[in-house]
């Protein structure tokens, strides 16, 4: 408990430096109290009003112009993008998602969304081919049988959703990196982004190249040691443990490479484009 007297012992002797002026009258204790109260309460009021106005400004700030990202307030989108740049520095291929024994994998894997893979849509996995769009309009067509001849990688990890749920699940398929190596697409990995779309183009994601090339990123065709069920993304889906579920595209139709962000379904709905874990 600092008493007022102690606090007021040091002050205000500025007047002494100019000898011509008459020294000001010493303030009474009462005046000092009032003066200090006035100053501090003014500052408090200014800060309080500032905080309130700042919140109002933020809350009522306009929506970003719809483009690759949309649906968020302008300043909040800026913050998301800056935050991405900050946390991307922590990204490393050596940081691996925790894996679990097979016995812990869920038998009933949750189906949270069917955008782009709706049951009523006509789709025949047998005639499906993965399209990889190369430079100059060249398209590489890869069948599931061809993919299955590549080295198979399995992962049992905790799949995480932005909604808050997570589930340990078991997937098998080709590492994205192995696909790149096998089809000699190494040059394309110098570009910054990979875009993936469902065959009907209803669902689409954009993935930064480091995350796509992460050693645990799979193009999965198996779940719990069996071929993928349709609602889980047959014949081929993305399993990317360094991203939230929203980036784990089901039923991949085509893959593209670009230096700018490819369009992304949930980034257009106000979510963070990066959504990295």
């Amino acid at each position, binding site marked *: 408990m600092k*008493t007022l007297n102690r606090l007021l012992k040091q002050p205000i002797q500025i007047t002494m430096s100019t000898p011509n002026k008459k020294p000001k009258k010493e303030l009474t204790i009462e005046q000092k109290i009032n003066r200090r109260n006035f100053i501090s309460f003014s500052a408090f009021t200014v800060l309080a009003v500032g905080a309130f106005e700042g919140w109002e400004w933020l809350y009522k700030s306009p929506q970003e112009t719809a483009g690759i990202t949309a649906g968020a307030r302008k300043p909040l989108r800026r913050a998301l993008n800056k935050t991405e740049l900050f946390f991307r520095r922590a990204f490393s291929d050596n940081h691996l998602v925790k894996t679990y024994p097979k016995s812990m994998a869920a038998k009933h894997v949750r189906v949270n969304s069917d955008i782009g893979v709706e049951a009523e849509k006509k789709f025949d996995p047998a005639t499906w081919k993965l399209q990889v769009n190369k430079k100059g309009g060249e398209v590489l067509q890869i069948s599931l049988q061809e993919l299955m001849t590549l080295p198979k990688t399995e992962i049992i990890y905790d799949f995480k959703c932005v909604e808050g749920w997570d589930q340990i699940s078991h997937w098998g398929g080709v590492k994205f990196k192995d696909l790149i190596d096998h089809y000699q697409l190494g040059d394309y990995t110098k570009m910054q982004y990979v875009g993936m779309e469902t065959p009907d183009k209803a669902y689409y994601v954009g993935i930064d190249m480091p995350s796509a090339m992460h050693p645990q990123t799979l193009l999965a065709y198996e779940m719990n040691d069996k071929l993928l069920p349709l609602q889980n993304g047959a014949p081929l889906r993305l399993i990317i443990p360094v991203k939230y579920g929203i980036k784990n595209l089901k039923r991949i139709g085509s893959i593209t490479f670009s230096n700018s962000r490819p369009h992304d379904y949930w980034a257009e709905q106000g979510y963070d484009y990066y959504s990295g874990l």
Partner: protein
Amino acid sequence: MLIYWANDEYYIRIFGHTYFRFFPDWFYNTLKIPHRLSEGMAFHFLFMWFFTLNGILYFIYTIISGDWRELMPKKNSFKEAFLVVLHDLHIRKMAPPQNKYNAAQRIAYTAIIIMGFGSVITGLAIYKPVQFYYLTWICGGYHFARILHFILTLGYVFFFVIHIVQVILAGWNNFRSVISGFEVVNENPKPAIETTNTDNDEHTE
């Protein structure tokens, strides 16, 4: 424990019949919560910076200024804090003697700093569980880290409510001292004979 934003997850259901829903639709509709997850996340990832930086600056300030001496609990604080609580609940008449902050405040104001660090660490553990896997491990895994993060948030709500109530109860002079940084104490000369009247031991927070 399931920490989940969707409203239908919390209920008491026996033999397929739902007896009680903790958060019925009207609760969410009144608060205008549904379908605003992306908005909430965007706010979260902006304000995390503000709270973290503010906490770090405050922490550094208390170290440099030496004010931490007023804020750290002392050996006897834990015993005394109990007496403070008894006093505040009007069970005990006398408050234990105090300095700038009483024992209960010392514990609360130090705990809130530890909680702040806890929120940052558990927050990073669930925000980037792959990149900061060691933090997730320290926090006892993804699930436990989420529970801790959530409980800490509840802790701030309680801290806030109790704190505001205490400030209101402590009265205007105390509030004025909170804002201005000094307290007005009338130092009357001590009477030669002490009166037994203890009514005027104005207790301030």
